[in-house]
């Protein structure tokens, strides 16, 4: 095996176990700078460092979806992302769904109107997943079972999902300007 030690190696970062890593990101439109351990999960960074406790943590292995946030515009499991991986990225959490003037996002409006929550633990994750689907252009031409497939990455232990499916349909209509 040839070991080419003469070549220039570009390493953007090399942090020892106890080092803190400087990161910058934009969270809900606000620039954030922090120094954090590399092992800190994005979910914990949002909740413990930024005190944005709307993002919930259920399982920490990607199964429940409660921790879903948008990273670079795409719904992402914040429990399966290191905060350092989000360096330089845009993050949107449930706290950033409504407009600055308090106008609800279509998905918030529809979850409220359709009573799509009971205890509310799963709700932020569901809303961030559905908001992502709305942005991808999901339509109401989908059958209920197709729609449920899209929602299957989020678990709810209370509602039985009926009203969550209804709220998703309503959110699509609101996005399309079909209802007031």
């Amino acid at each position, binding site marked *: 095996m040839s070991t080419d030690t003469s070549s220039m190696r570009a390493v953007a970062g090399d942090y020892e176990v106890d080092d803190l890593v400087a990161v910058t990101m934009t969270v809900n439109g606000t620039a954030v700078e922090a120094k954090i351990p590399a*092992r800190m*999960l994005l979910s914990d960074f949002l909740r413990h460092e930024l005190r944005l406790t709307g993002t919930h943590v259920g399982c*920490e292995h*990607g199964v429940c979806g409660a921790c879903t946030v948008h990273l670079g515009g795409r719904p992402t*499991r914040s*429990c399966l992302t*290191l905060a350092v991986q989000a360096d330089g990225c845009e993050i949107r959490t449930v706290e950033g769904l409504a407009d600055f003037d308090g106008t609800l996002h279509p998905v918030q409006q529809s979850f409220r109107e359709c009573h799509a929550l009971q205890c509310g633990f799963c709700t932020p994750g569901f809303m961030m997943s559905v908001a992502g689907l709305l942005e991808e252009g999901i339509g109401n031409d989908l059958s209920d079972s197709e729609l449920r*497939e899209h929602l299957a990455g989020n678990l709810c232990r209370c509602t039985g999902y009926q009203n969550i499916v209804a709220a998703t349909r309503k959110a699509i209509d609101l996005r399309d300007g079909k209802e007031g």
Partner: protein
Amino acid sequence: MKPSAFRYVVPADLQSAVHARAANYDSAVLSGGQSLIPTMNFRLSHPDVVIDLRLLDELDYVRTDPSYVRVGAMTRQRTLEFDDSAYRANPLIRQTLQNVAHPVIRNRGTVGGSLAHADPAAELPCLITTLRGELVAHGLDGPRKIPAADFFQFIFTTALEPDELLVEAAFPVLDPGEGWAFCEFARRHGDFALSAVACTVKIGPGGAIQRARLGACGIASTPVVLAECEALLVGNKPSEELFAEVARQAVSSIEATDEPEAQRRYRRHLLDGLVRRALEQAIQRTGARV
């Protein structure tokens, strides 16, 4: 739980990533993190060094040439799923990806990560094995091509050397008129498959099957090509009886596992149904009738 502490290395390019890998044989490579981070959260793995590939934009591409859909290892699964040129060249790729986890997981999970992880129940390894695709590894000595059949060696074990990274996966394109299907059974939507079958069929001028590719996952420690089944198909006209015979042959190729008998029978039953369903769907897509 939370990951244990580690040294964190962020290479700026492929060369430095390979050097970092070669210098730290006990490192973990972090691409999408959708398999690695859960195991770190539960302390099933506690690497001393984590090498994060997030700056390697050079490995984020989908290029379609006349023979292959070439996908860079850092391409997100969802990006490949939505890629129209890849879909036109080989629609089976999109259908297979739709069976991988949930959209939110596919937003982060990479094509290279899934293949390097080599879960015996995972869909992408099954697809690339069935299609006789090729993987490209890159180590200190430069790039190296590895046929899919040699790449997957055992549960979570690949032919990658300790200093090598997976950099590309090449999925063969389908011929015009070639039929295709991916069928799986999972306990819940988005779960890993209990068993899954990928297949392509091409009908010759006389109406007989000219080429057939059939593979499965969830039935052995690696994805498998069902070569005897393919041989049974070629030269024959598609029919229900033929598919039933092929399914019987497929079931006999399930490797003896230490599962309880009930589970083993269930798996045989599943595979039998999946093979027949996949063949019917693939034939339908050729426009031929059974």
